[in-house]
């Protein structure tokens, strides 16, 4: 009978298929679920905290103050002639968004094992919703940054917002893609190696110091800049700062490398994720 009615089957379940096994149209069908997850995270967050969104502001503020004291006032690291506070704030909020996306999506399989074990929906829905949820946090922190930017601008501290600002939405998407890519890459690996989740905590910290967050790229000797360019976050943070503050050592080829690396990591993440998502319930 299968000869006549093969075309009528709407779904075929078999063991792992090819390398790239993500059904994009299916993901689109579940877009309502993505939005509901975002909403759930958001509402649940506010119902549980006393200070609510204030936490989102305190965290970058404190970090920035600490950075200003240690790296600028004590260590005297250059900030390219920019007001140190604004310099660190810009780096911090950009980095925070990426780091949050990455660390939160890296738990996807383990924290959702209960629900994944009971019902099927495209597993990518969860990391995607996390990346979107974090956009709200970013928006609040970005507002804070803008407020300080305006303040410093009118105080005449030599900052020059320029047309590179137009590229910011693109950078945001790139950070989301990179955070998602790294996150699902790690979450796929943590189904087998739980200790990677521990390594991640200080891995993120190390990565931050390998990225020009607390120092400008201009401080890096020219012969080593290519190495820093391989880190996709370098170009993102540096461009972000350049666009709003008007000072930095970013070169277009670095952005190109950064795009390439982001694409590579995301693609690798999706491939690994799609291989793991079908059977991880048996190993976790």
């Amino acid at each position, binding site marked *: 009978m299968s000869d006549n009615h093969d075309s009528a089957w709407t779904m075929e379940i078999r063991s792992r298929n090819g390398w790239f096994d993500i059904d994009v149209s299916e993901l689109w069908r579940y877009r309502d*679920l993505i939005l509901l997850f975002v909403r759930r995270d958001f509402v649940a967050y506010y119902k549980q905290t006393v200070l609510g969104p204030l936490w989102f502001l305190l965290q970058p503020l404190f970090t920035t103050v600490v950075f200003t004291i240690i790296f600028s006032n004590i260590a005297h690291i250059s900030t390219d002639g920019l007001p140190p506070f604004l310099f660190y704030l810009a780096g911090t909020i950009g980095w925070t968004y990426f780091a949050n996306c990455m660390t939160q999506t890296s738990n996807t399989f383990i924290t959702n094992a209960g629900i994944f074990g009971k019902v099927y929906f495209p597993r990518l829905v969860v990391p995607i919703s996390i990346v979107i949820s974090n956009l709200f946090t970013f928006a609040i922190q970005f507002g804070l940054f803008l407020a300080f930017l305006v303040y410093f601008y009118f105080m005449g501290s030599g900052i020059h917002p320029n047309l590179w600002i137009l590229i910011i939405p693109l950078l945001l998407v790139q950070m989301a893609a990179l955070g998602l890519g790294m996150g699902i890459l790690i979450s796929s690996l943590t189904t087998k190696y739980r200790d990677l989740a521990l390594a991640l905590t200080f891995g993120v910290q190390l990565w931050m110091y390998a990225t020009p967050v607390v120092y400008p790229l201009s401080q890096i000797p020219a012969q080593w800049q290519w190495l820093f360019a391989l880190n996709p976050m370098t170009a993102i943070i540096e461009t972000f700062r350049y666009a709003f503050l008007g000072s930095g050592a970013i070169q277009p080829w670095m952005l190109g490398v950064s795009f390439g690396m982001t694409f590579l990591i995301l693609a690798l993440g999706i491939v690994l994720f799609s291989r793991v998502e079908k059977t991880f319930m048996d190993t976790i």
Partner: protein
Amino acid sequence: MSDVVIQVENLCKEYRLGTISHGTLYRDLQSGWAKFRGKDDPNSIIGSHNRGQMGNTDDRILALNNVSFDIHQGEVVGIIGRNGAGKSTLLKIISRVTAPTSGTIKIKGRGASLLEVGTGFHPELPGRENIFLNGAILGMRKSEIEQKFDEIVKFAEIDKFIDTPVKRYSSGMYVRLAFAVAAHLDTDILLVDEVLAVGDVAFQKKSLNKMKNVTSEGRTVLIVSHSMPIIRNNCKKVIFLKNGAISAFDIPAVSVDSYLNAANEESRYLVKEITSEMHTTGISKIRVKKIQMVDENGNIQEHIKYHQPLIIEVFIECIDAVDNVGFGIIISTKDNVILLQTHCFDKSNAYWNLVRGRFKVQIRVLNQLKRGHYSLQFGAHQKPFNVSLLDIPNALTFEITDEPFQPEENYSQFNGGLLDSFSDWSLIDI
């Protein structure tokens, strides 16, 4: 045959026993390094090389072994089997929670979804939002949920609490809401894993009715259950899984019977030595040594023929004299429905006074049982305060076979009830 909606072909699912790797990168590297230097793996289980003797060299089990079947549209199909037979694994593969090791499943129509209770409910969110969230997890679009929202709330009987966070719900309300959302899904295939065991009796009934409605709409239902009455009364066909393979796929009567049969195929003859572990009460002065079922000539039986009197013999030993003892038996179906209960004092109103020694208690019971499997419980108590002296719940299971007077088809189709009446029917002119 175009109405086949689920076609399962040579489905296998293999699980590896024990840990797959050590679970941490550090230990995997450690083991790898030891191997590289030609030393013993520091993480290997001591004595693990002995396991080969048990014929289990590669620690793998086939949870599903070459399973194939077709399910037609609108059927309610039951899946039964002992724990670990692969029932839930099968549902998980059909619902795509996990992937098969080999083989394929082809599905026609909108995907299969598992009726799982409260998956993805968030305790902080009110019932209203959880309906949307849960519905979306199960694959519904927001607009669909909006359409069915009132129906779901009405079915779950939680109208007043729709804006209360579900963490304040009673467990009954929680389960009702969860079932309501799942049951109103617009999928062509519904998978039900033992959820009907929840809620009160009225809600269970409502749920079962809903399932029936669902099939009349042309949707297909697969139920995994350990409750034989639910399987018998609701399924059209039943798959009996045994050690990951299909042992029977037939009408409920056949599959359920062979399942129950397999569950107690320990002994061929209706005789059982009773050990002290089988006594559920503590130490008392009376111990049961053996229980058997015999025919008129005292021969131990393999099974009881239809209409043949039930003669039960219980061998007991009294360690000391006991007065005012009442013995009793209970015969029940394999679904634990009690069919009859009888005591030694039923007719004579006399309790027994036993002296020290060994005795045989013989019980003759009029056999009104239909063909099938039954279990026998034996117990004793002492009069003044009804102290339980002994209780052996599953003392013996037996089968009634051969119903000489009943043509099979007519019998199963028209005779409801649990007992035979041996009625004589006649049509008399008046």
